[in-house]
């Protein structure tokens, strides 16, 4: 029997706010434990939450970007459970009236098709703190710096059909939230966390199978590994005549397996109810309009525009628009006068990305400004530099040693296109290699490369290859 995997994802995105969602405490990452936890975050007696306007704005931005319904009225609810890193004994979240409902995300699949993945909802909530179990031999520590950090929990429909699709969805979502500047999307720092619901069913079946929820998926690689393992486990279980149990499972990346965390019976009864400390969140049209008018161009639209406006292929456009900063870099260079949009794309996708990768840099840390790259390409177009010479100049620019023209002049890299100068070198070369020249004149065309190489060597690679080719061939005609 063949099986179909059904996956839905819940992604917690940490919102890029200065302060926490219900207090004025800063949200800076990496501070020493419990130094970014004020009385409100600590759940002191008598304190009250006050909603962060910026967090609402970012959630609305997301909702508009995925074509969702932005709720004019949403409600914060308390999710009640006891845990040492949950200071109030409840988490303020949204339950039956979330701020964002519906919408969809289009994800590019490897086969070149675009899949539309439904988004059920996205809601605002506060993060909990962190329990530290490996720091003290006899006790657990609690770090409440993270408590109260604003999160947007984005819940997808069970529309994904394979671990590969799940990863494609996550990557598209990751790109989108960074495009929208609602999150830094930093996976290592926990700004983008994923839980997955997975079930399997016989191909053709329309009802959903019993699902398990998998937690602790903190990299795209782990998501793929964990989902593959879990799908296999469920299929094996069913094929052996067993039953999947609805439960929460934890992924162990070291052993590459999922393990039960708690069963449905042990599941918490969170006793959700509207938080009486917070009034329903009512959004006015003017507020939503302001957020809408400030929306940046979205990845799909940008990709299409890169294809139509710059004549780029689908692949190049997709890679260049994967991050807003990279796309901006391309467009800045273009505006700065880079002459050939296709050549510019090749340079960025080739040289620039390779060097960023080599030096472990992000595009916003690129040492060669877009305007410099543009000038470099101008120098190729106007014949000053050959392709290989340009790469040498680029390397020097990357190291921060001057401007394009300074480097060309200082290191004598200017391409020699002056026919007189080149003819002299050609004559010297013919004199030194008379035998080969005779053979070449006799019709051994392959030797053209030999002579070009010799002249290049003599000019330290500065000879304009086109000019050189033409001159050598003309010289043979005269000899012949």
């Amino acid at each position, binding site marked *: 029997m063949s099986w179909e995997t059904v996956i839905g994802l819940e992604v917690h995105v940490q919102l890029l706010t200065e302060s926490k969602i219900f207090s004025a405490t800063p949200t800076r990452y990496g501070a020493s434990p419990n130094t970014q936890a004020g009385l409100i975050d600590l759940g002191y007696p008598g304190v009250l939450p*006050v909603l962060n306007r910026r967090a609402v704005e970012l959630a609305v931005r997301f909702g508009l970007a995925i074509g969702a319904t932005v709720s004019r009225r949403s409600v914060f609810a308390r999710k009640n459970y006891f845990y040492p890193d949950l200071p109030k*004994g409840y988490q303020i979240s949204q339950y039956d009236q979330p701020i964002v409902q519906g919408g969809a995300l289009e994800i590019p699949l490897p086969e070149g098709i675009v899949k539309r993945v439904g988004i059920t909802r996205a809601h605002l909530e506060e993060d909990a703190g962190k329990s530290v179990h490996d720091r003290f031999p006899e006790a657990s520590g609690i770090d409440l710096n993270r408590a109260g950090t604003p999160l947007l929990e984005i819940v997808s429909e069970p529309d994904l059909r394979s671990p590969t699709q799940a990863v494609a969805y996550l990557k598209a979502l990751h790109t989108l939230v960074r495009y929208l500047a609602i999150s830094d999307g930093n996976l290592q720092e926990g700004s983008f966390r994923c839980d997955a619901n997975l079930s399997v069913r016989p191909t053709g079946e329309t009802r959903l199978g019993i699902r398990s929820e998998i937690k602790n998926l903190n990299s795209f690689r782990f998501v793929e590994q964990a989902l593959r393992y879990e799908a296999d486990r469920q299929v094996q279980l069913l094929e052996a005549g067993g039953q999947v149990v609805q439960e929460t499972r934890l992924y162990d990346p070291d052993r590459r397996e999922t393990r039960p965390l708690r069963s449905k019976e042990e599941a918490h009864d969170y006793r959700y109810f509207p938080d009486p400390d917070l009034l329903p969140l009512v959004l006015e049209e003017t507020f939503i309009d302001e957020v809408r008018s400030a929306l940046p161009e979205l990845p799909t639209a940008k990709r299409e525009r890169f294809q139509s406006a710059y004549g780029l292929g689908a692949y190049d456009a997709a890679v260049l628009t994967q991050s807003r900063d990279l796309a901006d870099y391309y467009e800045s260079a273009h505006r700065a006068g880079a002459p050939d949009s296709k050549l510019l794309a090749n340079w960025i996708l080739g040289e620039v990305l390779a060097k960023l990768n080599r030096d472990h840099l992000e595009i916003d840390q690129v040492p060669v400004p877009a305007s410099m790259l543009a000038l470099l390409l101008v120098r190729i177009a106007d014949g000053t530099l050959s392709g290989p010479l340009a790469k040498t100049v680029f390397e020097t620019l990357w190291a921060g040693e001057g401007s394009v023209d300074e480097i060309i002049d200082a290191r004598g890299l200017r391409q020699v296109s002056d026919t007189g100068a080149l003819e002299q070198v050609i004559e010297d070369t013919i004199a030194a290699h008379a035998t080969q020249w005779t053979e070449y004149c006799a019709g051994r065309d392959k030797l053209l490369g030999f002579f070009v190489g010799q002249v290049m060597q003599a000019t330290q690679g500065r000879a304009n290859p086109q000019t050189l080719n033409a001159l050598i061939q003309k010289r043979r005609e005269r000899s012949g």
Partner: protein
Amino acid sequence: MKLRSRVPELVAATARETRSALEYYRERIRVLNPRLNAFITPVDPQAHPATGAPGTRRLAGLPIAHKDLFVTRGIPTTCGSRMLAGFVPPYDACVVERLDLAGCTLIGKTNMDEFAMGSSNETSAFGPVRNPWNLERVPGGSSGGSAAAVAAGLVPVATGTDTGGSIRQPAALCGITGIKPSYGRVSRFGMIAFASSMDQAGVLARSAEDAAWVLREMAGHDPRDSTSVGLPVPDYVAALTRGVRGLRIGIVQNFFDEGLWPAVADRIREALSVLEAAGAQLIDITLPHLSLSVPVYYVLAPAECSSNLARYDGIRYGHRARDPVDLTDLYCRSRSEGFGAEVQRRILIGTYVLSHGYYDAYYLKAQRVRRLIRNDFLKAFESVDLLAGPTTPTPAFRLGEKTADPLTMYLNDIYTIGVNLAGLPALSVPAGLVEGLPVGLQLIGRDFDEETLFAAAADFQGRTDWHRAEPPGFEEGSG
């Protein structure tokens, strides 16, 4: 003379007189409090200096006591619970801050039912408060310490909180004036929460005039409390002289039911005729859903409290059980040891009504009925300016009389609870004695119309002497 000094007299005194008044009250606390147990923590006047910019100073030198539910910077705040014994907050409640800035001098934190859950002050972990009118009787609750302290002349004014009647009921049983403002009028920031959608801070005082002077400083928007309203605060002191002439007062017929003692009903009818003689028009009003107040309240208030009190887990502050074997043991024992029986009962009820499968039947249904109750009030206020009736069905009952039967205890708040569910302002003024014990007349106003309450109460007190009656044994010079 000093005992009967009005707030405007106290705040107009010379510095020397202020010092002597302060000493006078501190001495009365020292001598008389042991009979009443009205204070959990007496406070040295130097112990809590105001910080920040000087405020209005309109209450300069006024000695005040705060219910031990308002957090006070550097001064123990227990909320009447073993759970918070020894807890010293690092910050002030908004109410405390504003009264500090107005120039009040904090002289003590008053006893109360544990976490404000109770109607007799018997659930306090620090022992019951006694009613100064009869030491074998309860003072009411949960602001019983504040009420007893003001009634016995240990302090001229005190703050309280009212979630289901916790200011008005003890004010009535102790023969003083108590106002619960509209929900949202006074910031809840720094008020230890019981039921957040109903909790509201107010004043217990000897007269409507004194209460108006104090509430004027407490009220007003606070950005730290999202449920506090942005409305301007009217001058309540100016409202005192408006009088009741021309006001339409609705007599809530439902309040005069079989549970009401006939003698109490007589005092209330007498009080209403005083208002009528002063020019008010009395109109009979029925609130159809009011009888559902008690059941609705005892679903919603426990639901909110079960969540509000979850933070007392023994982890960060408050009582922690010794030598826990694991996390569950730490939670269970810390909370079992830290909370008294009534608080535990309400946490259990609240947890139950919010549970999966019961939420719709209890919590959601109660919320719907709450709306019906509020609509009854709103409809009534289309034809009247105030509503009136008794504050409690009986005068103060005996200590221990109702502790064995929570339902009977809950019924003591039958006339006050509806007001909290509707979020309206209400006050209780002394309306005479029954068997030597005070009873209170309750007046209920429109949303944010505390002014009319003060106007009517001040007019009534200008025509009656009940608010000047002193409990035997606590007169001037006692102790």
